[in-house]
């Protein structure tokens, strides 16, 4: 090892205490002999002839810090001892209540008179009433008459079925994504619901690839592989 890279002497014990502040904090200050450390530090510096004023400054600063720590400890020692805790107050034994029968004055009339108040209050609080009110307008308000609605549904199903039969010619199946290409979201949802109705009627078969999540549509019943899921 070359002289240039060798550690300066003061980074070795015992002087390293003065240069490693984090170690200093862990020490009991009374275990550090500042006078010895500083004298030996100076004599070592003289002996080697390498005078380093920065090192001397740090040593001085650390010594002052250790000195301060010692003083603080001394002051703590000088603080008057905590007054002895007063003896705990006398806690008498529990008083056990004598058992006595006692008639009480509450009658059924009292119960009924408060019931009136409670039931009035209940009307203000009752959440179940609020919940039981329909959140959406009644079906009749948003849907056409039921029969008309069903007729319209049949018509739409028929249209879609026709379209599917045209589209699956040749390949036999069609992807849902192809079916809804270029149409808006509402229309796509509409088509999907109609597909479910068609599937329920057995006019189409649906299954989905679990990985790609693509939905396949086949016209008529179809035997599908076991690892694919039909709807």
């Amino acid at each position, binding site marked *: 090892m070359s002289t240039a890279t060798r550690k300066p002497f003061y980074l070795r014990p015992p002087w390293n205490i003065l240069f490693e502040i984090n170690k200093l904090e862990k020490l009991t200050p009374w275990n550090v002999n500042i006078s010895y450390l500083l004298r030996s530090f100076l004599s070592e510096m003289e002996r080697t002839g390498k005078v380093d004023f920065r090192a001397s400054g740090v040593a001085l600063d650390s010594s002052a810090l250790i000195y301060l720590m010692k003083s603080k400890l001394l002051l703590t020692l000088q603080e008057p001892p905590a007054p002895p805790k007063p003896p705990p107050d006398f806690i008498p034994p529990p008083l056990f209540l004598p*058992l*006595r*029968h*006692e*008639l*009480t*004055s*509450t*009658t*059924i*009339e*009292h*119960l*009924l*008179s*408060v*019931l*009136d*108040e*409670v*039931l009035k*209050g*209940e009307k203000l*609080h*009752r*959440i*179940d009433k609020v919940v039981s009110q329909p959140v959406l307008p009644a079906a009749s308000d948003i849907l056409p008459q039921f029969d008309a609605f069903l007729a319209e549904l049949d018509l739409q199903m028929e249209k879609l079925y026709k379209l599917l039969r045209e589209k699956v010619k040749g390949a036999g199946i069609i992807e849902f994504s192809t079916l809804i290409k270029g149409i808006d979201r509402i229309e796509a949802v509409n088509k999907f619901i109609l597909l479910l109705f068609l599937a329920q009627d057995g006019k189409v078969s649906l299954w989905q690839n679990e990985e790609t999540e693509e939905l396949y549509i086949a016209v008529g019943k179809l035997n599908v592989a076991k690892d694919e899921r039909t709807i």
Partner: protein
Amino acid sequence: MQKTKEQSDNSQAEAKQAQEEKIKRHLRLLEAALYVAGRPLTINELCSVLSTRSKNKTKKYTKALIREYSTRNTALEILELKDERYVLQLKADFTPLVRKLVNRPLLSSGPLKTLSYIAYRQPISQKRVIQARGQHAYGHVKLLRDMGLVAAEHAGRSMTLRTTDYFADYFGLTHDTSTMKRELKRIFGEAMKV
């Protein structure tokens, strides 16, 4: 021979005395139970006071106590009710004479309101009681259960509340819940008309 007879007489007398002491003690225990309860006690409750499983034995003792009370000149009486229940109470003709001394309500206003609500809507979930009566009703329900006026049944995470037989006895209502609710509604309806 003489001595043996004497010994036998002595031990018989001792056994008889012990038996009498036991009877007296049982009568006093039943009296103590009926007095502090201040409500009708079932034969099972009285059995547990005497630490016995024999309903017949307990009934015998209770009937002896009833006789004791009826022969004694006293303002109190012990009655046998339906369903093998027994109650110690003031004889009815004394009630009007001492009624003015009764001034402590059974419950303060808050818990009484919660009780009336439970009685009227029972069986009712604790959740609905809290919705109608507010958060403080948790404390009321606890008090009403501690007092034996309301019983709770756990069903999963929810709790169903209903009034007890003690409640019915206290207010002079029938024990059957649905009849009681009809009674309450009828009395309540009449009270509202006034």
